[in-house]
């Protein structure tokens, strides 16, 4: 397991208390799981992604991530419609471990309320929360 100072937490994205990240570009938001989440789960073996076209509310369950000995539910960081999913994850779930913020992105959403994005934690707040967990 990584120590807090070993975690890679980019500055230009937002985080949730379920350890997802969200990154806005234009009017869509890409979503994935944080370095902390992938480190806690260990080797990820299977990812179940939402259907393109499906709409979810914020905090609604929208997928699952399985490692060898754990299964973790994925919750929507913000409400909206899924407009794309990462097609590579089905054949290569290890991308979530190797490159959680890059090739391991999970899906892309068109947000219903942009305000929900702005209310997500920034790096500093997320790090504070992680300190509380350790």
């Amino acid at each position, binding site marked *: 397991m990584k120590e807090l100072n070993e975690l890679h937490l980019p500055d230009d994205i937002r985080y949730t208390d379920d350890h997802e990240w969200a990154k806005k570009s234009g009017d869509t938001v890409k979503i994935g799981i944080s370095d902390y989440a992938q480190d806690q789960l260990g080797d990820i073996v299977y990812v179940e992604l939402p259907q393109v076209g499906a709409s979810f509310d914020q905090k609604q369950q929208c997928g699952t991530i399985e490692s*060898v*000995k754990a*299964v973790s539910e994925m919750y929507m960081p913000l409400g909206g419609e899924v407009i794309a999913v990462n097609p590579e994850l089905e054949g290569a779930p290890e991308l979530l471990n190797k490159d959680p913020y890059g090739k391991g992105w999970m899906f892309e959403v068109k947000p219903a309320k942009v305000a929900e994005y702005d209310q997500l934690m920034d790096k500093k707040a997320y790090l504070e929360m992680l300190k509380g967990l350790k």
Partner: protein
Amino acid sequence: MRYLPHTPEDLESMLKVVGVKSLEDLFDVIPRDSRRTGNMDLPAAMSEWELHDFMSGLADKTAAGPAYKLFIGAGSYEHHIPATVAHLSSRSEFVTSYTPYQPEMSQGTLQAIYEYQTLASRLLGMEVANASMYDGATALAEALLMALRITRKKYLAVSSLIHPLYRRVIRTYLGPTGAELIELPRSADGTTDFSRIEEMPDLAAVALQSPNFFGCLENLSTAAGLIHKQNGLLIACFTEPLAFGLFKNPGSQGADIACGEGQSLGIPRSFGGPGLGMFASSMKYVRNMPGRLVGLTKDQEGKRGFVLTLSTREQHIRREKATSNICTNNSLCALTSAIYMASLGGSGLRDLARLNYDKAQYLQSALKKAGFKITFTAPAFNEFVVQFPSGFKTVHDRLLEKKKIAAGLSLAPFYPDLPDHYLLCVTETKSKEDLDALVREVQS
């Protein structure tokens, strides 16, 4: 007591380490009002020798001796079991080990179960078989629950020619789920009338048994075509998998899930249990499958090895969201059946199935010649239904009492519209003389 190794000296020194004075004091944390006051009301302990005499006496009070000629199957079949099967499956290393959670120390069980999964999926013509379930009836119940999960529909069409006791078990399992069971009627030839499933709404699955309870083969391919048009699943159940040595297997006929009882593959009848719940499906449904799975992998040095895998489906990880609450398989029974299948081999299984078929056909013709009616005309494997003259029950009872012959199972308790109809079973254990004697006796 010979299983309890502690000497008085052991006790004294161990109690001292623990820091209590007596064995009773170990239980000080238990509140007084939760304790038992008197002794448990149980019979006095027996020595090994007394026990064996007593148990032999009990075992003698069943109709199981070689003098009995039982022509009853109905989900529990008499087949010859090679001496090697019982011998190998009673090896301590298999019998007294736990679920193989620590694979480095359990490669024996793991490889054997991987081989069982392979043999089972080849026999049933399916892509993947699990490590086994409790029995045929509970496997069918789990298959129906799996179909509800996959299709997210509500209605299940279940053939009335599935073993009547299995149908009772599925009602128990499905009771609280809110799923609706529709029973499919039978046709005159002894198979299921599934012509109307096209009109049935929202079907998650159709479940058929083949060979069915009357021994007849169902046309699974036709049923598969109909249910697949509705985006439902075909569940093919069975009680006598030996049939697939000779007849088309469920997978080749389009079944999505094949499940049933594997007792006839080398497991003694043992008054109905333990049996072997066989369970197989297409690979695309594997994550919705209940039960354990063993998978192939490599160790750190690249050597072949086996592990329990895809366990995130199971209750110890997914808890209330698991695919089933099942926490075990019938591992030793799966091993036993694998040893049996290995002993027969592909050629042997085919020859043995053929022999069962031939003997059943011989008895059918002989009974027909003697003037009895073979009720159903659809092709059958090693069981079939005979209509005896009314009042045959007295003959049946007398044969059982006086001649130790069980001339089939009366169908009246299960199908009240079939009085005087009996389900007869013939396997390789019956000689031509036995069959001829049965024909003689039922005419007397």
